């Protein structure tokens, strides 16, 4: 179902973005780490749309 798919995507994004954004784990997320995590998800989605659209354009 939809909720399961949403959670599965969140697991995947966390897997991708945690190493990229979090260095040595500290006592809390810094605002920089937090911003990095949000940007990581958004830019990954942007990248997916960019690639899908460009593939469509190439095909035509």
């Amino acid at each position, binding site marked *: 179902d939809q909720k399961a798919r*949403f959670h599965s995507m*969140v*697991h995947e994004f*966390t897997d991708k973005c945690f190493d990229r954004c979090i260095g040595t784990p500290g006592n809390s997320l810094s605002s920089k*780490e937090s911003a990095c*995590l949000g940007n990581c998800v958004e830019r990954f989605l942007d990248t997916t749309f960019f690639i899908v659209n460009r593939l469509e354009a190439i095909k035509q």
Partner: protein
Amino acid sequence: AQQLLQKMTDKCFNKCITKPGSDLSGSDRACLAKCMDRYLESWNVISKAYATRVQ
């Protein structure tokens, strides 16, 4: 929850136990606890960012 547990264990083992010794030291446990907390926090930040985007 199984998927969360598995990915968190892999990440935190890689981050905290770089040279596996003869037991889990106090500093290994402290690192694992922080890593878990940051992983769960990251999961929440990412969940919100994704929810905002797909709404």
